[in-house]
């Protein structure tokens, strides 16, 4: 990496290291810390004492392995055992027992947990670091007011404020502020102490008036006054112990607990030396903070930048799990306390075993993983998605911000993000900027700060050291940003380099540089660093690309990209989708679903994943890549997983594209494709869906699973076996019954509609004693049944509920309406599939596979796609794969372009195809229309680009409704495809109908397709009986709205009756 010598090589850190480290921290330290906090519990008479021996805790290895946990829908967890003791104080008797405290879900090697058979991941949260922050604000009169905000470990705030008269206030709630002296007195210091410890006592004295003097006279008075202001209660509360306790709980614990990080920050900021274990706010802190504030008023200190990363901390899995652990132990403590007291009262002798149950810990973790906003279902669309999900950093969640209220400032990129949080990879939409992604080289330090690596440049030693620096430190160094220096290290003395210093970009001499960045991709997240030529793309499009790569569907036959960045390998490796040899050995036997490896005398069986469903319904499948008799080294790839080829990430396919308009079929981001992509299975993907049904106990008996369903036609039941469950391997279509189920029901004549009853009487159908509640295949669900599972759970006394789970695999070719995208944010929808002879073709007769619109490039400013396209062409011709690091322009002007052109030239020379590189229009070529054989007017850019098929597919979206259900309250059609909903005819749509004068459609939409309940029912009646549909007589609410709208346009629409006799007008309300 760095020229001569083997000076500390730097490799990429494991991409899921951030999760694993967090979890290890929890297991190593968090557990013991939590257990040590568990107090000794005494009963009310103080006869018995219960205690945990924290140091003796044990975690048992789980009985099942990960794959079984997924298959059986269980939680992959370890049992926690702690030895406990019960001490009888009178007799000094100790009863010791090792007891089961509960289950702790474990993390697997990929950084995910398996809870109830579902892969889940806990996302790291970014929070404001506890400590004090100084700001200045302008008050309505334009005078700046200085405030210092103390943020507690829990996110509570306490504000100190100095106003124009140099009075210092503490703001305890949003409106109320109290004098700082009252706060300090309430915290237990008296006036003389205050004045002694403060830098500017005269200021404190100056705003001390007689009234205040009385209030701070005694601690009780101060507390009383403080309570009155804090709780906003009027009148005169009397000082009592309970009042003090409430204040303790609500104020001093929530807003004044700094935690260890907070204490450290406080000490650093205010130059204090309070010991680390003192995690609460002390009067001394406030006094020093107040002096600081005064100093600020005199212009002697700097304001804080609240968005700087040094003022943030990461709350990782470790912290979240530890918080939950603490919570569970508190619950356990309360429970133990309750049981001890109960046992004593009933004169029973308790044992530790019956004092402690596993419920608090187990349920706490279960609800944490199930309900906590930061614990999310692992997005498993493709391997990249899995990796990226674990590296997300979120401002949201408890104690954080919300998408709707977060300011623009906080969403913005900050100079301190360099090398820590990716400046481009964030979600689009409401959470933009609030969910970030960790840069590839960054790691999380012990204080919850994100650290970025740098190379230290020192004169003294030739050795180059790598340092991980937190955001508070690297600002004070000159950091050379480019590493072009690596090439010309010998003449570095004369060089002037661009550098970063204190959020500024400077150009300085090489000698002045302290540090330099290690890798051009250091600043980016994984998603962004998989984009080749990213430096030529607009950041917005790069953002879209990094998001869209995560939506790529694994294809049935993956293909490596011709043009890549070299990071594909690491991503595939760390995602864990491919099977990798843990030991070296010989392959004894390979099969589709397992590989046997002979290692040091014993045979290891390595199971492979075969057509498994992922959380996003994509297909996970491993294909063995090794053959019998081969010797395997440790770390060698045994089987490629979904979307990986040869251990490299392969999300899409290299297809031949041209940038040209084609009959308007690619206007506005539509894409024209060749049918080759269909019949050669280029963009064919597998999707596995899971359908489940359960049997329940009803008041008339239990539900039955059977294949004899009299209510349904035999055709729908054709796939059922004799038990009433679909046969494995059968092909099912929409509406087919997967599981036949009957629910017992009271046989009642009156439950049928009159016409139904008549029919039954005529045809002599017996009144059924059951209702069919079969599991039917919903719309769009056709496919092959690949798995049928019958799970019997041991339920209550006599009845065992059953669950039947059916997996259906669907093979989807690309079709019109599917979304495809490149890696540069160039996305589009397939608009037409042309036969290969109709597609435009190149000069060697090869038809193009996709036609993009050239107008999609200039306004989007993602020129990277053009470079990739041309380089891909030469790569395809020369059978070469390119791995390109970004920002090559710093070595030379227009380096990317030169590279692409030289490669094209070479390809054209070697394959003797002069049209590949034509000097008049390099990269472009004449293209011919497949229908006429004429060449198009202008030469167009053509080449090979890596194209992904995204998970947004028509099959999941296409939907229509003629009639269906209506919402109960509004009587309007339901929303959404899943509920057979309708398309909303909103205001603007109604205007359009009005504008075109389509009265009948408008009438239909506003009456019987909408909230006119009576007509709707009449329509139903007439369609059954026959006859013409009656015209509605009165107007529904939606029509009244229309009338009101017309009135607001000064048009009166009314209903008049003119009497024939006297021409008197009777007005009717419309």
């Amino acid at each position, binding site marked *: 990496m760095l020229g001569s010598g083997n000076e500390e090589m730097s490799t990429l850190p494991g991409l899921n290291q951030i999760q694993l480290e967090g979890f290890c921290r929890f297991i190593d330290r968090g557990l013991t810390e939590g257990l040590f906090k568990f107090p000794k519990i005494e009963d009310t008479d103080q006869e018995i004492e219960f205690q945990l021996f924290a140091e003796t805790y044990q975690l048992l290895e789980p009985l099942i392995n990960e794959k079984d946990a997924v298959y059986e829908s269980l939680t992959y967890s370890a049992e926690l055992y702690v030895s406990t003791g019960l001490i009888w104080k009178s007799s000094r008797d100790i009863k010791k027992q090792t007891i089961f405290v509960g289950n702790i879900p474990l993390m697997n090697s990929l950084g995910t947990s398996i809870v109830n058979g579902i892969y889940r991941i806990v996302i790291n949260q970014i929070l404001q670091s506890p400590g004090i922050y100084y700001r200045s604000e302008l008050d309505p009169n334009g005078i700046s007011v200085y405030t210092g905000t103390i943020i507690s470990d829990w996110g509570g705030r306490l504000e100190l404020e100095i106003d124009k008269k140099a009075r210092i206030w503490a703001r305890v709630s949003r409106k109320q502020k109290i004098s700082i002296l009252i706060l300090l007195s309430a915290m237990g210091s008296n006036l003389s102490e205050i004045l002694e410890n403060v830098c500017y006592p005269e200021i404190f004295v100056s705003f001390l008036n007689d009234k205040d003097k009385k209030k701070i006279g005694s601690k009780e008075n101060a507390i009383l006054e403080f309570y009155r202001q804090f709780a906003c209660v009027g009148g005169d509360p009397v000082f009592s112990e309970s009042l003090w306790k409430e204040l303790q709980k609500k104020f001093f614990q929530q807003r004044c607990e700094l935690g260890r990080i907070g204490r450290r920050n406080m000490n650093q900021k205010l130059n204090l030396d309070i010991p680390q274990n003192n995690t609460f706010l002390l009067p001394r802190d406030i006094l020093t903070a107040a002096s600081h504030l005064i100093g600020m008023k005199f212009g002697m200190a700097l304001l804080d930048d609240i968005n700087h990363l040094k003022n943030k901390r990461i709350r990782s899995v470790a912290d979240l799990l530890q918080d939950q652990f603490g919570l569970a132990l508190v619950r356990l403590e309360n429970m133990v306390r309750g049981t001890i007291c109960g046992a004593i009262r009933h004169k029973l002798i308790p044992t530790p075993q019956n004092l402690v149950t596993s419920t608090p810990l187990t349920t706490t973790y279960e609800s944490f993983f199930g309900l906590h906003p930061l614990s999310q279902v692992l997005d498993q669309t493709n391997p990249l998605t899995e990796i990226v999900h674990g590296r997300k950093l979120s401002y949201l969640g408890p104690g954080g911000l919300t998408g709707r209220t977060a300011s623009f400032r906080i969403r913005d990129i900050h100079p301190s993000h360099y090398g820590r949080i990716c400046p481009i990879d964030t979600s689009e939409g409401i959470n933009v900027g609030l969910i970030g992604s960790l840069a590839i080289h960054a790691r999380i330090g012990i204080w919850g700060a994100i650290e970025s690596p740098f190379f230290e440049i020192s004169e003294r030693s030739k050795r180059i050291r790598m340092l991980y620096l937190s955001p508070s430190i690297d600002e004070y160094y000159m950091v050379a940003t480019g590493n072009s220096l690596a090439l010309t290290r010998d003449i570095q003395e004369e060089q002037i380099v661009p550098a970063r210093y204190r959020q500024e970009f400077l150009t300085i001499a090489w000698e002045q540089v302290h540090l330099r960045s290690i890798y051009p991709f250091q600043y980016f997240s994984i998603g962004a660093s998989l984009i080749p030529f990213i430096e030529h793309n607009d950041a917005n499009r790069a953002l879209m690309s990094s998001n869209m790569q995560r939506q790529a569907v694994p294809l049935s036959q993956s293909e490596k990209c011709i043009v890549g960045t070299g990071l594909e390998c690491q991503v595939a490796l760390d995602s864990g989708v491919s099977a990798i040899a843990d030991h070296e050995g010989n392959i004894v036997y390979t099969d*589709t679903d397992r590989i046997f490896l002979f290692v040091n005398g014993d045979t290891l069986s390595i199971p492979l994943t075969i057509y498994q469903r992922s959380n996003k319904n994509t297909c996970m499948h491993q294909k063995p890549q090794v053959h019998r008799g081969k010797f395997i080294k440790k770390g060698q790839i045994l089987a490629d997983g979904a979307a990986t080829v040869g251990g490299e990430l392969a999300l899409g396919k290299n297809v031949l594209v041209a940038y040209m308009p084609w009959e308007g079929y690619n206007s506005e981001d539509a894409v024209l494709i060749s049918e080759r992509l269909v019949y050669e299975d280029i963009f064919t993907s597998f999707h596995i869906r899971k359908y489940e049904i359960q049997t329940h106990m009803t008041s008339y008996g239990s539900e039955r699973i059977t294949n004899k369903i009299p209510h349904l036609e035999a055709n729908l039941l054709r796939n059922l076996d004799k038990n009433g469950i679909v046969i494995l391997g059968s092909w099912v279509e929409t509406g087919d019954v997967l599981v036949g189920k009957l629910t017992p029901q009271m046989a009642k004549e009156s439950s049928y509609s009159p016409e139904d009853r008549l029919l039954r009487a005529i045809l002599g159908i017996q009144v059924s004693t059951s209702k069919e509640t079969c599991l039917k295949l919903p719309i769009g669900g056709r496919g092959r049944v690949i798995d049928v599972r019958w799970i019997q759970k041991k339920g209550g006394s006599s009845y065992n509920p059953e669950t039947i789970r059916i997996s259906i695999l669907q093979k989807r070719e690309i079709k019109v309406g599917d979304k495809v995208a490149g890696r540069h944010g160039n996305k589009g929808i397939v608009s037409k599939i042309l036969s290969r002879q109709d597609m435009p073709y190149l000069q060697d007769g*090869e038809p193009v596979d996709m036609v993009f619109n050239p107008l999609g490039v200039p306004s989007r400013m993602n020129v990277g796609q053009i470079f990739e396209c041309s380089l891909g062409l030469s790569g395809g011709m020369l059978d070469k794969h390119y791995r390109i690091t970004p920002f090559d322009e710093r070595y030379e002007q227009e380096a990317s372009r030169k590279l692409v052109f030289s490669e094209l030239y070479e390809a054209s020379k070697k394959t003797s195809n002069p049209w590949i590189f034509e000097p008049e229009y390099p990269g472009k070529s004449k293209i011919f229309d497949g229908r006429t054989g004429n060449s198009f007017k202008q030469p167009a850019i053509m080449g090979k680009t890596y194209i992904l098929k995204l998970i947004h597919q028509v099959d999941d979206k296409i939907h229509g409704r003629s009639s269906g259900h209506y919402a109960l309250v509004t009587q309007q059609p339901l929303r959404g495809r899943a509920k057979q909903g309708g398309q909303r005819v909103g205001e603007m749509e109604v205007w359009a109908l009005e504008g075109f004068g389509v009265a009948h459609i408008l009438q239909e939409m506003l009456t019987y397709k909408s909230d006119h309940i009576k007509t709707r029912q009449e329509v139903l009646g007439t369609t059954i009986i026959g006859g013409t549909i009656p015209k509605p007589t009165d107007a529904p609410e939606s029509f009244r709205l229309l009338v009101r709208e017309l009135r607001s346009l000064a048009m009166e629409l009314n209903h008049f009756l003119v009497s024939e006799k006297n021409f008197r007008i009777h007005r009717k309300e419309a």
Partner: protein
Amino acid sequence: MVQEKLRVSTRTLQWKCVESRIDSKRLYYGRFILSPLMKGQADTIGIAIRRILLGEIEGTCITCVKSEKIPHEYSTIIGIEESVHEIFMNLKEIVLKSNMYGIQDASISFKGPGYITAQDIILPPSVEIVDNRQHIANVTEPVHLCIELKIERNRGYRIKTLKNFQDGSYDIDARFMPVRNVNYSIHSYVNGNEKQEILFLEIWTNGSLTPKEALYEASQNLIELFIPFLHAEEDNFHLEKNQHKVTLPLFTFHDILVKDKLRKNQKEIALKSIFIDQLELPPRIYNCLKRSNIHTLLELLSNSQEDLLKFEHFHVEDGKSILDILKIQKYFA
């Protein structure tokens, strides 16, 4: 001018295979020239032949697989390295050469261990395998694998998902396209004082037929497409007769209509464009007609009353009511 024309027509068009190459068993290449052509002719022939070669040359493919051992496409067979789906994909890729019609049967009967390749397919006499070494599966255990195949000759491609699971057979997406790529280029030159052109034609095939054969088949296809024009007059006559047959007055109340022969054609077009939806028929009759695939008034009138009565739920009164409605709406002026 007349003389010039004559001169051109006497010079015969000639084609020649300039280059022919077998890159691999499944990649044949051939380059042909056709000359001399008059200005513009090369383009006409070139594009037509390219489109035919790419789109309409017939190929032979395995279209259906049947085996008792296979539970479904996405399962695995013990002792075989590939999954069933991968075997199917490999079978799809196999290139066959044949001159058969319809569907024929083939089979694989293999006893492991060993590699199953294309030469293990037992084929009917009219079908040949192009590349014997095409891989199908790797059997690692002594398993007996028995697969029945169906072979079909067709053009284009077909993606089917049929439901005939019960007999254990699976359709494979078929791709009957023996021609891989075609290119043509035109070179014009001046011969004497007129411009002439040479057509270069490059053809790549998958080995199931040589480029020469492909060219021959394409030309034949193309000629077949033009044959109707050679009998232009007869065909027109035929068409007229057809039309006459359609309008034979069978319906009883059609008589009213036939009176004026001059107005007939006009009327017919009108009748064709009137859909029965516009007649405001009672819903029951309307549905009944719709179900019997009667959509326009013309279709309605070309049925006799007896025919109508044969339809399900069509009563005698209905015929009358239709007549009434038609009269009211003045379709019979």
